Every structure is written in structure tokens, then in C-alpha cells.
């Protein structure tokens, strides 16, 4: 008897102690380097939260709503470049993650969501808080797993991190049944799952690089169309090297603001529905679009059949399904943006050293003419009220290019993309693809956790702010001093703008006549934040300075702005980019001085 006991003890020192599925999950998170988790517990995920209790090196931030956890994980990932992690329970906890997952899927954000589910024996019985989240998230994630075997938890979670951050980044969901979390692991896995169908290609073929550079050399009106993929790939230095080597004008999409410095003379601005005239014109009139990590989104192209009608296309992307999806291509470059652009630089350098002499001078002059003739601008309201653009411009000027800016979706988002100067990648976080109102506050929270030494401003609208501001409580309790500028026009501004322009000023359900409900200053204070208000142009700078001075808690500033301000320029939805209006009823003439 005693012999048997001694033998067992000896074996225990050699092997890891018996552990539950939940413990193996926590160990895997530690192994892959996770430091922060945003989440909210519930019945089905309790074994996992028990294993998290006191786990070394893991900080769990308890949110007030699971959607906040998801957007916080996105903001964390977008600001740091690392995988964001969120956690929720079964049923409603999991379904509340669907919006952030869909958002991360559209904007290629590396993120892992872990959910508990009901015990496997109860699955399919419509058990309390049961939802088939693996299936629900199929079309809005890079991949979704359901694990019911404790022996597979560790490998699956490790594979989820691998999938989230390699190839085209994206969200991966791991749903684990409660019994698998609670059961003992009897047979540890190999570390990761075998994924025979997953082989992302990171290097373009040499022929495609040669063909691309040949097109670039023959082109007379090329433009570098820089998208969010360059930010995710960390390819900003390579993009700048290529731009400066070739002298080709650059446009940066909404997702790529900061991938190329706004202050750079070759920068023509943001293309698209609310882009600069120079960026839209550069694409429309080009004879070669060099797309780097962009996807010819409808908000960029306008009506596709009249988009850049004379342009050939070089399309570089990590995702083969993007190449040629929306626009036929002449040369596809499949690979990681850093590698692809590096190789373009090398090939272009070699060809010019061998005597090739590309001539873009006339085109560059023309682009610069557009840039100087049609700068971004706005009208100060005649009644002396606050221009929202002025507020956002001053926040950008005072907080500077080292700060991180997040935004919701709508007019304030467009102004924040236009009137803040971005000089570095990872400084501008927004919901570009899905257009999720309510992204700003939780994303700012996540960004501040990831980059505690940076000032983080959420530029939010009064509509968006009311969708997720419960996370101010999280920020106050957890010591996450974000700054929130509510651009309060007492309306759903972008909806109102479209109703003004396209629906005969019939303001159906876009106004908020009870604009003072809630009182945002009192709301901020109720959440343990500082609350400030500003409604006069003369007080803008002083109010921003006062907000900047608050560092011991979150601060919310209610900027009461003019409600009739509109976002210009604008390409009306579904029309050609040629129909761009510089301001209302004012169309620029692209073709003059041709």
C-alpha cells in the first residue's frame, strides 16, 4: 500500500499536476503571451473564471456589457498590433459579442473571443442561456471553434491565436462547453491543431513583382492607394520608402490614416465618399492604381463602373480572395505588405539603376495643383455657435500626433479622419467596414490598457456615445483615464445630413429634441468621471486643456455644436466619384488645366 503511494508521488513530480480544461485554457493564454482580457462572467463560463482567479500575469478587466469587451479587445489590438482577447458566458453573453466580431472581421483585427457554453449533454435541448454561437459567428469570423473535449482545449486556443494573427488577421471564436472546462485533462495535445487547409502565402512571386514594376515604369499617372492592410502588417516604413523612391502621389484610406504621414508633401489625403478632392481626383484620373492592402470598398470607389476608368491596377493583398474581387486587376501581388513593398522597392531601384526613367513630373504637378486648390475646410456657423470641425481640429492640435484617437461612426468620424493630422500608424482607430456606432468609448478603453502612456481621446457623437457609455464605469473603477469628446449636435448627424440632401429635409427620427437628456456632464460624474461642457468657440482650447490636465480618472467633454454642420467634400452614395462636391452644390473641375 505504502509502496503504491510512494510511486504515485514520484510520478507526480515528473508530470504536470492534473488540471482541468479551464486550467489548461488559462495556461495556454499565459503561454501565448496574453496579458489583458476584457470580459464578463456568467454561469456557463464560471469554471474558467475560477481558473483565472489569481492567475499570474493575466489582468482581467470586468466590463459592463460584452459588446464593450469585444470593442475593447479590438481597440487593444489596433493600438498595439497584438491579439486582443475578450471573454463571455453562453447565450446572451456570447451573442453580445457578435457585433464586435463582425466589426473585427470587416477591419481585419486580430482578436480571440472565448465563450463558455452549456454542458455538452444539454446542447441542442434549448437549455437556459444556450446559443449556438459557433454557427452564429460563422459568417462574421475568420474561424469559430466549438470544443467539448477537455483534451482539445489547449490546442484549440493556441490555434485560435495562430489564426487570428497570421495571414489576413481576423477574429477567431472559441466556444467551450462547461463540462469540458470542468473536466480533467487526461491526454494533453501536441500544442496546436493540425490545420491542413490553412496555408497563408506571404511572399509574392518574382514574376508578379517584375510585372508590377514594369507597369509602374511605363505609367505616367500612377497613384499609391494605401489601405488598412499596411497598418496591420506594420508596413508603414516600407510604404514611405516606396513613395519617396518613386515620387508617386499617395492616398490613405479611412483604415490607413497615419500609415503615411499627413504632413508629407506627396500625401493627397483620404479618398472616398468624404475624401479630399485631390485624393479622389488622383484616383479618378490615374492610369495606374497601386493598391497596397486596400480592397476597393464601395465607399472609396463610388459607382464602380465609372471608378478610375483609365487606370490599370496592381493589387497587393495578403488575401487572395480580395485580388480582383471588386475591380479587375492587371497584376496581383499576393503576400504580406511588408514583403511585397520591400520587393517593389528593390526591383524599382534595380530597374532605374539599369537606366529606366519613369516620368511622373507632369502628373505630380497636377496632383499638387488639386491639393492646393481644394484644401479641406469648413464654414464657421453664422450664429456664433460651435463648429464641430473646429473642436476636433483643436483636439488634434493640442493632443498632438502621439495621442491615440478613436471614433464612433458618422459625421464626427469623418471630421476626425479629416481634421486631425495623423503622422504614425496605430494612432487612428475606427470602425471602417462595419460602421459600428458605439465603437469609440470601449475601443479607447482597450487602447489605453494597451498603451497606458499615450493620451487616448474618443471622439464620439451624442448618438454613438449613448450606445456604449456604460464602459465609463469600467474605466473609472479600473483606473483607465480615457478622454471622451462628445460632439453633441443633438441629432444623428449623418442621418440628418442625408435627409437634408436627399430626403427634402424630412427629418424622420434623426433629431433628439430632448438633447439635454441625459445631461452628459452629470452622467460623467455619476460614472465617477470628470464632466466638462463647452458651447462657445472662445472656450474650446481652455476646455481641451482642462481635459488634458485630468489624469486620475476618465473625463467626458460635452461639446454643444451647431447641428446643421455637414461633412464635405461628398460623393453621394451610388454615384460616380466624378460627381464629387467640394461643398454643397459646388463641383470641382478635375479637367481644367489638363
Amino acid at each position, binding site marked *: 500500500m505504502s509502496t503504491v503511494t510512494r510511486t504515485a508521488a514520484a510520478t507526480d513530480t515528473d508530470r504536470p499536476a492534473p488540471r482541468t480544461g479551464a486550467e489548461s485554457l488559462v495556461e495556454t493564454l499565459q503561454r501565448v503571451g496574453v496579458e489583458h482580457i476584457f470580459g464578463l462572467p456568467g454561469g456557463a463560463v464560471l469554471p474558467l473564471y475560477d481558473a483565472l482567479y489569481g492567475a499570474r500575469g493575466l489582468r482581467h478587466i470586468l466590463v459592463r456589457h460584452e459588446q464593450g469587451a469585444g470593442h475593447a479587445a479590438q481597440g487593444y489590438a489596433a493600438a498595439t498590433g497584438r491579439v486582443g482577447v475578450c471573454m463571455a458566458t453562453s447565450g446572451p453573453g456570447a451573442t453580445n459579442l457578435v457585433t464586435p466580431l463582425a466589426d473585427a472581421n470587416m477591419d481585419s483585427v486580430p482578436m480571440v473571443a472565448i465563450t463558455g457554453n452549456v454542458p455538452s449533454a444539454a446542447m441542442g435541448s434549448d437549455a437556459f442561456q444556450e446559443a449556438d454561437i*459557433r*454557427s452564429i459567428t*460563422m*459568417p462574421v469570423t*475568420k*474561424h469559430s471553434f*466549438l470544443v467539448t473535449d477537455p483534451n482539445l482545449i489547449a490546442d484549440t486556443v493556441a490555434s485560435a491565436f495562430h*489564426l487570428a494573427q497570421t495571414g489576413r488577421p481576423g477574429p477567431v471564436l472559441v466556444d467551450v462547453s462547461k463540462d469540458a472546462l470542468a473536466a480533467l485533462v487526461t491526454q494533453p495535445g501536441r500544442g496546436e491543431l493540425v*490545420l*491542413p*487547409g*490553412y496555408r497563408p502565402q506571404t511572399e509574392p512571386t518574382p514574376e508578379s513583382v517584375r510585372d508590377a514594376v514594369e507597369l509602374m515604369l511605363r505609367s505616367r499617372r500612377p497613384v499609391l492607394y494605401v489601405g488598412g492592410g499596411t497598418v496591420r502588417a506594420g508596413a508603414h516604413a516600407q510604404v514611405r520608402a516606396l513613395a519617396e523612391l518613386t515620387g508617386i502621389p499617395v492616398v490613405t484610406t479611412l483604415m490607413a490614416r497615419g500609415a503615411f504621414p499627413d504632413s508629407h508633401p506627396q500625401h493627397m489625403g483620404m479618398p472616398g465618399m468624404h475624401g479630399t478632392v485631390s485624393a479622389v481626383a488622383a484616383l479618378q484620373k490615374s492610369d495606374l492604381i497601386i493598391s497596397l492592402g486596400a480592397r476597393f470598398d464601395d465607399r472609396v470607389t463610388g459607382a464602380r463602373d465609372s471608378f478610375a476608368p483609365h487606370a490599370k491596377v496592381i493589387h497587393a493583398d495578403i*488575401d*487572395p*480572395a480580395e485580388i*480582383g*474581387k471588386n475591380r479587375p486587376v492587371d497584376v496581383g501581388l499576393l503576400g504580406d505588405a511588408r514583403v511585397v513593398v520591400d520587393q517593389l522597392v528593390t526591383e524599382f531601384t534595380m530597374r532605374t539603376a539599369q537606366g529606366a526613367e519613369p516620368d511622373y513630373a507632369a502628373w505630380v504637378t497636377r496632383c499638387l495643383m488639386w491639393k492646393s486648390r481644394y484644401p479641406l475646410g469648413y464654414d464657421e456657423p453664422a450664429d456664433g455657435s460651435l463648429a464641430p470641425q473646429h473642436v476636433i481640429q483643436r483636439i488634434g492640435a493640442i493632443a498632438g500626433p502621439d495621442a491615440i484617437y478613436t471614433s464612433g461612426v458618422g459625421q464626427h468620424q469623418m471630421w476626425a479622419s479629416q481634421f486631425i493630422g495623423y503622422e504614425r500608424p496605430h494612432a487612428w482607430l475606427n470602425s471602417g467596414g462595419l460602421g459600428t456606432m458605439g465603437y469609440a468609448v470601449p475601443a479607447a478603453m482597450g487602447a489605453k490598457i494597451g498603451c497606458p502612456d499615450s493620451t487616448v481621446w474618443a471622439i464620439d457623437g451624442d448618438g454613438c456615445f449613448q450606445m456604449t457609455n456604460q464602459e465609463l464605469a469600467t474605466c473609472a473603477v479600473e483606473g483607465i483615464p480615457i478622454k471622451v469628446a462628445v460632439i453633441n449636435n443633438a441629432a444623428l448627424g449623418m442621418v440628418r445630413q442625408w435627409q437634408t440632401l436627399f430626403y427634402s429635409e424630412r427629418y424622420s427620427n434623426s433629431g433628439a429634441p430632448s438633447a439635454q437628456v441625459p445631461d452628459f456632464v452629470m452622467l460623467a460624474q455619476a460614472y465617477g468621471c470628470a464632466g466638462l461642457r463647452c458651447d462657445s468657440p472662445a472656450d474650446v482650447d481652455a476646455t481641451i486643456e482642462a481635459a488634458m490636465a485630468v489624469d486620475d480618472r476618465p473625463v467626458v467633454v460635452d461639446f454643444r455644436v451647431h447641428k446643421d454642420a455637414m461633412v464635405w467634400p461628398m460623393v453621394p452614395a451610388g454615384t460616380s466619384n466624378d460627381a464629387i462636391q467640394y461643398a454643397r452644390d459646388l463641383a470641382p473641375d478635375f479637367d481644367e488645366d489638363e
Partner: protein
Amino acid sequence: MTAPTTDLPAPDTAYPSTTPTRKVSTMSRHALSVLVENNPGVLARVSVLFARRSFNIDHLVVGPTEDPKVSRMTILVNVSSEQLHKVTSQLDKLIEVIHIEELDDAAAIREQLWAINDNGPRPVGAMAAAWG
């Protein structure tokens, strides 16, 4: 309730695509052979993807391969080559899809399917009839 049941096509006729946006002139019959990981949920994943693109799947057969971890899906769709390229690109992105091949000889497929049907399951016969 109001649909006249007598007008339904015979069981073995190919159903016309109900998608309004397709240009009929460019459409043609394609057969895809898709190797997938034999996991629960993989059929849902594939069919969701087709549905999202408004592709009607005319016929779909899933069967085992010599490798128990791998299944083969044979999918018949009526689409243009360009649309087919786009959907196979998206299909290839699915983590559980291992390999996609377009089968190009329609007649040969039909004969093989009939051959299989002689001593095999009835759905294969329905599929073969769709080629006839």
C-alpha cells in the same frame, strides 16, 4: 398555401436558379470537388458561404474519402465563370477547406455518377440525372 403544387418540376429536373441578379446568358453548369476536414459544422459553413453570395446550389453530395479525417463535397452550381472564381476564392479561405478542384468533363461526371448509382445510394442518381 396559394402555390399550385401541380406546377412543381419533376423531381429529377434541374431547378432553375431563383437569383434575380444573375445574367442568364453568362451562366453555365459547374461542378466543384471540395476536400474538407471531416468536422461537425463544416457543411453549414460551406452552405452559408454560398447563400451569402446568393448562389443556389443545384446539387450537393457529401461523402467520405479514404482518409477518415477528410470528406469530399461535390457541389453543382449554375453560375458564370467569373462568379465561380469569386466563390471558390472565398471557399478557399475557409480554414476547414483543404482543396478545391473544378471538374471539367460534364459527361464523364454524369456517367461516373450513374455507374456509382448502380450499386450505390439514391442521391447520387439524382445528381447524375441533373447532368442529363
